[in-house]
């Protein structure tokens, strides 16, 4: 059998488990064989692991309008370096992505850039103003994969209900930044003992849980309105960046009831907690905020038991200058596309025996299921959107080497393993770090 690339002696691991060592032949954008063959290029991948390419349902790539923070080239290159073959961009750009033309323009430009594949999310409401719905059908046709007003919160319950009801007809899930603006007020960190002591405005866990509780009731209402006519393949509601044990508990109960709801958690909420703010460094300012170690622990359990469907990075690049403003004025957000996998592989799998196939599921099948994409498994005939990564080589996080324009990181200096060395999109290498010294 003839192919373009032969990855030899490679360990195969996907969401279904470990599949031993194989020689993976790739051609025409697909896995042709797991038993070798002829190819123009050979890679000796002894000691490396091949997995399906990662999929991020939530990244802020800032184009159009805020290219000083990030643009499609830097953002999608960062994604490829992070092992992602697929990335969903958030629509809170300037102007917001709220029309089919905007979605099409992003997709066309991303295809030319040829890094990770871009799947734009579009605004739920025109201008993300929370009033009039966007054109869900036209947006879906243009390639939008989610509708969201992320960057803002959906304060009008009626508009959100109509949005969910209408979007379902066109196969689109509504994704929400679940925080109640009134309860959150001007909070810049988790409200509690640490914020009271530091004298920083707090943002309570209950700002998140109260909003999730409301939105779950809206899902029940919309289900009743749809009278069983809604498409059942996808959820009606996707809750972004879950941060609290309380919010998780509400979603766990809703799922047990069978409500069509999914959710994601970010790498920072799993590995950092509010004590980081003791440094009074806006690097740790993120919305929703870093919570307590007990919250992080609960989220890890939720990721394990499947209450949490997937990892969403909420990659939120800003300029260095912006993140060096004070804690009240610095923008919310942490860039993390390039560290998500090695971070969670090291902190969860290596340090806590979190099962590797489960973590892989949350980076691959989980997000694809949320988005209605097909799963990628390591078998002949599968789409060759894959990542080759090194489970052993340890390297510190070096933000100055990020492809992202945001060259800072709360994990700077953390020594991690699991760094991607090759990312393929339909058989084409979009990131190659094999030459780097081992």
């Amino acid at each position, binding site marked *: 059998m003839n192919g373009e690339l032969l990855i030899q002696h490679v360990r195969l691991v996907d969401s279904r488990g470990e599949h031993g060592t194989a020689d993976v032949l790739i051609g025409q954008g697909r896995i042709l064989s797991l038993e070798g063959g002829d190819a123009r290029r050979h890679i000796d991948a002894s000691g490396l692991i091949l997995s399906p390419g990662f999929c991020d349902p939530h990244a802020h790539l800032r184009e159009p309008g805020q290219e000083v923070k990030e643009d499609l080239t830097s953002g999608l290159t960062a994604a490829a370096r992070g092992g992602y073959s697929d990335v969903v961009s958030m629509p809170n750009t300037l102007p917001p992505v709220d029309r089919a033309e905007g979605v099409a323009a992003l997709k066309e430009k991303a295809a030319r850039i040829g890094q990770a594949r871009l799947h734009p999310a579009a605004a739920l409401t025109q201008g993300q103003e929370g009033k009039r719905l966007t054109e869900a059908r036209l947006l879906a046709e243009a390639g939008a994969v989610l509708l969201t007003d992320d960057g803002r919160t959906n304060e009008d319950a009626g508009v959100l209900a109509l949005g969910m009801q209408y979007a379902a007809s066109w196969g689109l899930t509504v994704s929400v930044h679940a925080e109640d603006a009134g309860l959150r007020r001007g909070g810049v960190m988790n*409200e*509690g*003992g640490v914020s*009271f*002591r*530091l*004298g*920083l*405005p707090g943002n309570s866990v209950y700002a998140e849980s109260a909003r999730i509780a409301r939105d779950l009731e809206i899902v029940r209402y919309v289900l009743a309105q749809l009278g069983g006519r809604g498409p059942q393949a996808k959820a009606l509601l996707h809750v972004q960046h879950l941060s609290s044990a309380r919010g998780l508990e509400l979603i766990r109960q809703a799922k047990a009831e069978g409500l069509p709801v999914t959710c994601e958690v970010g790498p920072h909420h799993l590995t950092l907690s509010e004590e980081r703010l003791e*440094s*009074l*460094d*806006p690097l740790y300012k993120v919305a929703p905020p870093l919570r307590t170690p007990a919250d992080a622990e609960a989220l890890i359990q939720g990721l394990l038991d499947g209450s949490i469907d997937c990892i969403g990075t909420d990659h939120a690049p800003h300029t260095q*200058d912006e993140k*060096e*403003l*004070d*804690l*009240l*004025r610095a923008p919310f957000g942490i860039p993390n596309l390039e560290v998500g996998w090695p971070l969670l592989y090291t902190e969860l799998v290596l340090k806590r025996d979190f099962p590797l196939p489960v973590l892989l599921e949350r980076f691959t099948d989980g997000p694809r299921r949320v988005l209605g994409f097909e799963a990628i498994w390591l078998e002949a005939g599968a789409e060759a959107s894959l990542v080759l990564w090194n489970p052993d080589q340890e390297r510190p996080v070096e933000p100055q080497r990020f492809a992202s324009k945001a060259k800072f990181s709360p994990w700077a200096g953390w020594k991690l393993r699991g760094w991607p060395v090759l990312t393929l999109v339909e058989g084409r290498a979009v990131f190659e770090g094999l030459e780097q010294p081992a």
Partner: protein
Amino acid sequence: MTVTPDTSAAAPTPRSLLDFQGWSRAQLESLFETSKMMQEVLARPVKKVPALTGFTVATVFFEASTRTRLSFELAARRMSADVLSFSAATSSISKGETYKDTLLTLDAMGVDAYVIRVDAAGVCHQAERWLGKPIINAGDGWRAHPTQALLDAFTLLEALGSLEGKKIAIVGDILHSRVARSNAELLPRLGAEVVACGPATLLPGTLPGVQLSTDLKTGLTDADAVMVLRLQNERMDKGLLPSLPEYIAGYQVTQERLDWAKPGAPLLHPGPMNRDVELEGPLADSSRSLVERQVANGQAIRMAVLYHLLVGKKPRGES
């Protein structure tokens, strides 16, 4: 008299006064001893010592505050330091220049120590990271105002002799008060018991080492001293309080209510005062009030802080 405070007993003085983290009780007591010496200097006809000749102290006020700035500048001048004075409304920051840019610009002028006042918690910590020089926090957001707490404690020590086992009541908007937070950090270290008292919407959920109460009587009963905080009108605008009369009805410190405290218990206020809001007008002018002592002691305390942070260091420019 020569001013040569004995700082040898304590561990090395921290580089900055950002809050009281890293300041031991011995170091704080040494600071109070120095303050007493500075009081003697201030009692002289020529209120000036050459201790900081050659040093440049910048007062950087990103938030308006004439009184605190003048107090620091006078303190620095009385120690013979050169003073660089910068003040800007916060709006100029939103026009483009960041705190970091401003501070780095000033630093290029050869500053040895910075006194910083700002509306956001943490900027003094950031400044120390950016500049690597001694920083005196003159108030950062709701977080800390350590020289105010020091002058409050010093004034209380003058009035009460010792703070050991003394009950100090702090009344008002605790949640948004850097004065309350710094006193809550400092006074228990000196042996005092602190009760902070205010409307439920203006109290934090917890504050380490401090008893919190919404009941003014609980707060004032048997107090050895009462510290009254300024109420900002902004709290009504933000919906945290229904109205000014409502606050006055529940929390104004009046002659009658002051009788719940120990006989003769003194009154403190960090200023500026809203007469007849947080404090009944005549009380402010009564012999119970230590407000003028606080202002006078502020001078001595700020001279002592500058002395402790800069003594033994060399002004920039010397090799």
